[in-house]
């Protein structure tokens, strides 16, 4: 499909209400960068391993300098963090990492050179850059599956799945949509949550 494919059309307005904001009120811009500053400060504190006033002060100073000298485009997003659901997502990621590692280890020993695989196209339900990136990362974290190619415009993930077999297509699709559901429940908007829940009910029931 080559590089002619429009994968990042940020300027285009989307149904999800996601768009790049750059020239707004300077105060609003500063407020939107606060989470980034908080994150930089947290990394700084973890690196130093001391939590006194001096470290916090210099952490803030370095954070402000970094943001000032290397400005990243502030991207407005409609992500809402639900701490409980996000915690569930993290636990599930950890659990999946363990299970998948055992599965792939088993395959490596038992099947080895005769291992089979599939590349399956999965169309996601939600239309958002951030959600798609998070779903792709969640799918790719555990051994066995990874996202080989993303077609952003059509919301398609091409997922490589090891140890496929006959019903691979359906299984991989269910797994990826399951990750999407968990990610959306953790950080999606209410509308997106309703959408994935509706789809889940119609598939299960």
């Amino acid at each position: 499909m080559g590089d002619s494919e429009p994968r990042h059309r940020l300027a285009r307005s989307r149904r999800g209400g996601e768009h790049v904001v750059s020239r707004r009120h300077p105060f609003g811009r500063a407020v939107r960068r606060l989470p980034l500053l908080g994150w930089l400060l947290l990394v700084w504190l973890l690196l130093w391993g001391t939590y006194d006033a001096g470290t916090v002060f210099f952490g803030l100073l370095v954070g402000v300098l970094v943001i000032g000298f290397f400005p990243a485009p502030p991207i407005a997003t409609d992500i809402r963090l639900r701490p409980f659901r996000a915690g569930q997502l993290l636990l599930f990621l950890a659990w999946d990492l363990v299970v998948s590692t055992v599965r792939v280890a088993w395959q490596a020993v038992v099947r080895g050179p005769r291992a089979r695989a599939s590349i399956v196209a999965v169309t996601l339900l939600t239309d958002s850059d951030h959600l798609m990136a998070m779903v792709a990362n969640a799918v790719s974290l555990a051994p066995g599956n990874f996202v080989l190619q993303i077609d952003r415009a059509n919301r398609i993930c091409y997922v490589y799945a090891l140890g496929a077999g006959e019903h691979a297509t359906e299984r991989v699709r269910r797994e990826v949509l399951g990750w999407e559901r968990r990610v959306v429940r953790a950080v999606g908007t209410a509308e997106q949550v309703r959408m994935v829940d509706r789809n889940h009910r119609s598939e299960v029931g």
Partner: protein
Amino acid sequence: MSWLDLFSAVCLIAGAMSCLFGAIGLLTFPDVAARLQAATKPQTLGLVLILLGSAVHLELRYASGLILVGLFQALTAPVLAQLVGRAAYRAGSVRHETLDTDHLARRIERERGGSL
């Protein structure tokens, strides 16, 4: 031997096993894409377990850096796998006879035959 030692020992051994099976997979799997699974992923679990096993024996100020190591490993390994996998697919290093289904190839074929 305290419970902490036991926990630590279990974590370290499990982590090392995970890395070992990753290495075995690296040797036995048939192509780049499958080997990538073994090369990038079991190490994530192995590293996290080894960090966990070490961290419980450290003071908080030394252990906090280890959280970052685990976090960045978990964030970067999937991206690495995706980039290498994609490059391998395009370079033709994925052996198609090992694939049961390949939707991507179908699409590329369709686009080559169609508008492109």
